[in-house]
């Protein structure tokens, strides 16, 4: 049963990402990307990571993709401009194939009985908000604090870069 669910989510994820790349209309691209996100959320669910799955849907499929849609609609991008990247296309295909081979070799070597480093699966409470919360306040205390600084810098940066010109505020 689990295998069928996995296959379903995996096929949907791969198919929608391929379709997304082939699609020329940016709006369709975004919608297909949401499909990818949701099917990946399904994969997280199967890994017992309920919290991550929900976050995936709420943050990525919800908030971030809506932002994408807004930007695309505001910029009024209707269609990708053709004609560019004439030389790059065959080169990209070649390089992708070259990169794919070692990755494929890696995957094959797993099938041959490599180790699969597993998370603490099966443990009670794994993937629940409670456990993630306590990890954030114990093991990952310092990174959480740094992330706060990071967000502050991002906000300051956004304000600095979007302020029109240098409006003097002294009056």
């Amino acid at each position, binding site marked *: 049963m689990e295998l069928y669910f996995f296959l379903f989510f995996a096929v949907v994820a791969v198919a929608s990402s391929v379709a997304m790349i082939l699609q020329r209309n940016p709006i369709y691209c975004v919608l297909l990307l949401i499909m990818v996100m949701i099917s990946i959320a399904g994969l997280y669910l199967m890994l017992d990571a309920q919290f991550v799955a929900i976050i995936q849907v709420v943050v990525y499929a919800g908030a971030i993709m809506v932002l994408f849609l807004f930007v695309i609609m505001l910029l009024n991008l209707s269609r990708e401009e053709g004609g560019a990247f004439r030389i790059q296309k065959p080169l990209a295909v070649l390089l992708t194939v070259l990169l794919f081979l070692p990755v494929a070799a890696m995957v094959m070597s*797993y099938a041959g009985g*490599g180790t699969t480093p597993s998370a603490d699966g099966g443990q009670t409470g794994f993937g629940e908000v409670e456990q993630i919360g306590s990890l954030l306040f*114990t093991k990952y*205390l*310092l990174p959480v604090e740094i992330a706060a600084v990071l967000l502050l810098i991002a906000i*300051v*940066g956004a304000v600095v870069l979007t302020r029109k010109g240098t409006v003097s505020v002294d009056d």
Partner: protein
Amino acid sequence: MNMALPAINLYAVMPQIFLVSAATVVLIIGLFERFRKGIPYLSLLLLAVSGVFAVNQLGQGPVAFSDTSPMMVMDDFGLVATLVFIAGAMLTVLISVSYAEARSIDRGEYYALLIYAVSGMSMMAASTDLFSFFLGLEVLSISLYVLIGFEQREAGSNEGALKYFLLGAFASGFILYGMALLYGASGSTEYDVIARTLAGERSDAVNLLLLGGLGLLLVGIGFKISMVPFHAWTPDVYQGAPTPVAAFLSTGSKAAAFVVLIRLLGSVFPGLQMEWVPLISVLAILTIAVGNVVALVQTNLKRLLAYSSIAHAGYMLLPFMSNSQDGSASIVFYLIVYTAMNLGAFGVLAVLAARGASCATLDDLAGLGSRQPLLAAVMAVVMFSLAGIPPTAGFMAKFYLFSAVVTGGYIELAVIGLLFSGVSLYYYLRVVLWMYMRPATEAPAGATGRLSFSGMTALCLSALAILAVGVFPSELLQLAERAVMTLP
């Protein structure tokens, strides 16, 4: 539920706490228009205070943030690196004062972001965990994206910011993928655990994961230090960025990435040395060759310095091969000297640009020797040092660096490096030639007259430091050696 809070040691992250608080204070005070003129000096003061505290912590042994998950450690290596970053930032603030006023970008956010960037670099240097390393890297990168684009009305500044942002985000992606593979192989993000996985028995699959992870990390870090073939952004970004920011970018962010590389290659990945030594030696030679050869044909000064900084990154990659304490010490020494030299070179351009004088190309420097004798003298010292001519610090740095490479048994690498270093004489001395031997065709606007006091202070300080270290290098070398002693 019962949650045992871990025993944490705030003393271990003091330098970072000081820097973040300093930046936040500058950010808040900067909101008040009446303190506008004082902001650079406040930044200098707070940076100096953080520096003094870091000096006090020197030699207090490695102290980890927490025993259960160290994340960051306070040791001499991280502290010396932090001190170098703070010194670089202080010089950058000094050369920024007049430039920022002339371009009306003298806002509190500018200085605050500069200090935030320093805190990010300090986090990178102190990290003993991939988590905190990545967050430090992002703190640094996001501050830099904004700083590069600070001159909103300049098309070049916007272009540089966008280029650095897109490529930088891409590089961060590579680093994250690499970390994911390393986590998959070892089950932890701690440097120590990854090193232990490497030291123990490992299956082929785990080996592949580790190799893939290291390779992807090298791509991302290679981008930050502008290692060929990930260097293409460097000239465009340096050219477009505000000149003091370019100075900071070419010294601080590069130094931070090198410091992380010393920690990673020296204490985490020695087990894969057979694999990465050939890779890095080829890339180092390529970096030296491309940097020096392309710099020969540059007439734009910022682009010339950009290619020269690529070449210097190449030299600094060479001692990694021997993977000895001498090698690491020579890299730290080179980084300190390089920070002073490059800040000096970009500083001259910034001080000139603040006067409204155009200083884009070599021709603009013609006759500088008679118009601005002191400035030209500083530039000459810096150029001699970059070229590695005694009695400047650049010579000493190159001397220790290449002798560490030779002691490590990589004589052919040292020979190739030195040959290209000879090539570099041409373009460094050409700048000196233009300043002293070419008369100016017409006196450009703002070419004469008083230069900014703070800028000249910074420049004279770095020129004096270059000469002093060139004559008496032992103190600084001892500091560098002491720094790498604490590395496992």
